[in-house]
């Protein structure tokens, strides 16, 4: 059986979604905070960068250097943007998940209610 080539790991998904949500303000610290708040678990900045680097190597995101600010000790920000391939990977992952969930009764409505 063929499987989609570009399915993502769960943390990769979180990071990509956070990057999409943040839009033009998607840089390391903000992405970390967004994932942290959404998942309710402590996320290290190193894990975020390791994931973003991996996603960039796959062509799912693109990065560029931003401005340095005094609040950052004069260090520049690195901004990220999700590329088309990244959006496709998110869609393929969601499609794969939906396919696996077909016919599986989890006892709740995936839309948020109770089955």
């Amino acid at each position, binding site marked *: 059986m063929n499987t989609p080539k570009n399915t993502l790991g769960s943390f990769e998904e979180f990071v990509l979604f956070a990057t999409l949500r943040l839009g033009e303000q998607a*840089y*390391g*610290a903000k992405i*970390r*905070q967004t994932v942290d708040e959404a998942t309710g678990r*402590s*996320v*290290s*900045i*190193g*894990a975020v*960068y*390791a994931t973003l680097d991996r996603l960039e190597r796959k062509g799912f995101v693109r990065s560029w*250097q931003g401005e*340095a*600010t*005094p*609040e*950052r*000790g*004069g*260090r*520049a*920000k*690195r901004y990220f943007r999700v590329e088309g391939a990244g959006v496709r990977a998110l869609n393929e992952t969601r499609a794969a998940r939906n396919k696996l969930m077909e016919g599986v009764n989890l006892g709740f409505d995936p839309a948020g209610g109770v089955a």
Partner: protein
Amino acid sequence: MSDNSRDHRSRADAPDDLSHGEAERSRVVLFSFNASTRSEADEQGPIYAVRPGADLIVKAHKGWLESAVKVTPVEFYEHVSLLSKELSGGPDTGIDLMYVRHHGISVQPAPPRLAERVLYLALSKKARENLIGDLAEEYAGLRVRHGVRFANLWYRKQVCGSLLSLVPRAIRWGLLASAVEWVRRQL
């Protein structure tokens, strides 16, 4: 940096009233010459005022302004030149002076130095600037909101977590295999 008991002072009744200077040990209250309210001061950006005639408060309290009062521009600039020399990021100040703007100075609270140094050494040159900068940005905000102890703990946790993520997987598995082998030999 010492985070001993805080010297809390009562706030002015009107939150936007800048006529009373106040500061807490782990926070700095910011004033602006041209602003009459806090919201105006925030829009103009951070500056610091030092009590005229006082010994350099930074020096006396290891890096934190103990109190701040509104001063005239002349008095402020007299102290800025002294303050900029003292806040040069020495080991005891706990503050890195970032730059002096024409109407004030911006001060960056320093995160735990050992943790920062470990992370600096572990990262590639390319990664250092961005990652350490991100941590510094979050650390500064946490320090103001939650205090130095919380911020320092958060920073150290971030460094430990980041090191685990950044160490190459092959090395991680190699270390784990070595540990397992060692335990097996002890049994």
